[in-house]
């Protein structure tokens, strides 16, 4: 009986939330939502028209990654490995060694989770031109539950020599990142998420490897993050504080210059990530700050050594795992004291 009661409670919560959303005009006011993974599939399709060396190695997730069109138009360049991510990673490396640029596409809970040691040896150690696309990352994959909420991918990929790590904030930045990495011979991991996300990236800005972008400038508090969880912050109004929001989509290489410049100005840092605390952006930034001559106040909101669970609305998960607006407010209160 008890599960039914809690189910009911959740439905009530959802209702309240949707009312709250409509009252404020959505998560981000006046912001269009667009699918990050569709942007990936569409961009790759467009690039493949003029780049004949562009290949996809897939592990039975082409429809989820919007690669159906690519597979139909370029069947010889779409290599289907089935549910076998270890083989897929080494096949991608071998193909890359024959002069192709290979996009190894799956969910991050499978690739790079299942095939990490294969990525380490076959791709990184062998300098293979393979771009690993890991979709459905973070608590944002919602109803799929703990096994499909990849919260360790950034840690896994950041730790590998020769690997670059990028996480677009929206569909626009996805297009720019995919285009940029398609022209680079180095291995890269690109972290994508499942739900449609607000378009917040400035169309006029380029994506540059090792560069962060200010989404908003301010003087009271530096907010660092990556992926759509950070765009939620754009609308976040809390007292009269002026937040400086930095989109750290280039997670490796990081952009120490932009981060330190902002922290020097504000003296306060809040890192927000839909990932485990271990090995994520927060630890990278903490290490950077401790090695600098700055001594800012620091808070890190991330999933802390726990597994996720299913929810129809991932915002319920953010509330439950310490990433919700109440948690953000508490953290800011402490930082601003």
């Amino acid at each position, binding site marked *: 009986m008890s599960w039914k009661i809690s189910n009911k409670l959740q439905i009530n919560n959802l209702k309240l939330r949707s009312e709250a959303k409509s009252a404020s005009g959505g998560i981000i006011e006046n912001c269009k939502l667009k699918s990050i993974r569709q942007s990936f599939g569409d961009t790759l399709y467009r690039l493949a028209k003029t780049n004949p060396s562009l290949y996809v190695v897939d592990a039975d997730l082409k429809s989820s990654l919007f690669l159906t069109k690519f597979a139909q138009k370029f069947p010889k360049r779409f290599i289907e490995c089935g549910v076998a991510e270890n083989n897929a990673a*080494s096949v991608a490396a071998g193909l890359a060694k024959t002069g192709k640029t290979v996009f190894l596409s799956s969910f991050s809970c499978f690739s790079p989770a299942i095939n990490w040691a294969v990525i380490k040896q076959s791709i990184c150690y062998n300098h293979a031109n393979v771009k690993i696309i890991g979709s459905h990352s973070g608590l944002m994959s919602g109803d799929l539950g703990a096994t499909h909420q990849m919260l360790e991918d950034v840690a896994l990929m950041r730790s590998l020599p020769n690997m670059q790590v990028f996480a677009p904030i929206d569909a626009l930045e996805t297009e720019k990142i995919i285009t940029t990495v398609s022209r680079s011979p180095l291995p890269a991991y690109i972290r994508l998420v499942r739900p449609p996300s607000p378009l917040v990236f400035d169309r006029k800005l380029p994506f540059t490897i090792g560069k962060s972008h200010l989404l908003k400038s301010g003087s009271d508090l530096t907010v660092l993050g990556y992926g759509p969880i950070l765009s939620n912050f754009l609308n976040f109004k809390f007292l009269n504080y002026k937040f400086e929001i930095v989109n750290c989509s280039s997670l490796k290489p990081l952009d120490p210059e932009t981060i330190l410049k902002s922290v020097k100005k504000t003296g306060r840092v809040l890192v927000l990530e839909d990932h485990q605390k271990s090995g994520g952006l927060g630890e990278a930034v903490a290490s950077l700050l401790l090695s600098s001559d700055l001594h800012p106040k620091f808070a890190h909101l991330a999933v802390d050594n726990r597994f996720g669970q299913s929810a129809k609305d991932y915002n319920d998960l953010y509330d439950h795992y310490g990433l919700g607006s109440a948690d953000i407010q508490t953290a800011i209160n402490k930082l601003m004291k």
Partner: protein
Amino acid sequence: METSLSSLSHSLRLQLLEMIYQSGGGHLGGSLSSLDLLIAVYFSKIFRFPGDHFVLSAGHLCPALYTVLSSAGFFPSDFLTSYSSFNSPLQGHVSTDVPGVEYSSGSLGQGLSFASGLALGDRSRSVVCLTSDGEHQEGQIWEAAMFAAKYKLGNLINLIDYNHYQIDGATDDIMPLGRLAAKYIQFGWTVTTIDGHNFPQIVKALKNAQKSDFPNCIIAKTILGKGISFMQYDYHYHDVKNLSESLYLRAKNELENFK
């Protein structure tokens, strides 16, 4: 040609022993079992390197590959005794830092997939992948077996050094492979079983494999520690550490007089 391959086998076996002894140890057992297969790949003139591809999936067998590559002129033989030493490109497990090496390996089971990727991307060339029998306990090998059959990689050859032993004992005790030839046939491969120390058989199998429309598996029955009586069939010589001078001299004497 078989005579010259045999005489090369004779001299490289001695060079291998020297290399392992001088450098303080290494994976000698499997190097001695796979040596003739590597000699056939590089010296039978069936393949052209660079051009065709060779992938050492069982990266610990690199001492044998190093002696073969050095004989083939990729680097001077003076380098051999630096095997697994600090600052030497001749790592304890094979790396692309070594001239002539196309794939860095060491973690078992990945090379056949990598070779499949090469075979798919470069269909006009042959891709020979050397795997070990113990390595077939890795699930990824069977993922690759399915993949190569699906994509009809007729230019792919999986050359298996089947010496029946692995690090902790006999393959049949640790995890039996069962009917390996039958398994590959069921997976859609062309399979040949040969004596892995018989050059006419190795060369014939490699030549036949070139004409296949299906991926090719050559199961080469070999002897762990081949040529050194006290090492043969003894899994403790998978990795040799600090070989005593008397055992070294005994091994050397046996190899010098080996026909």
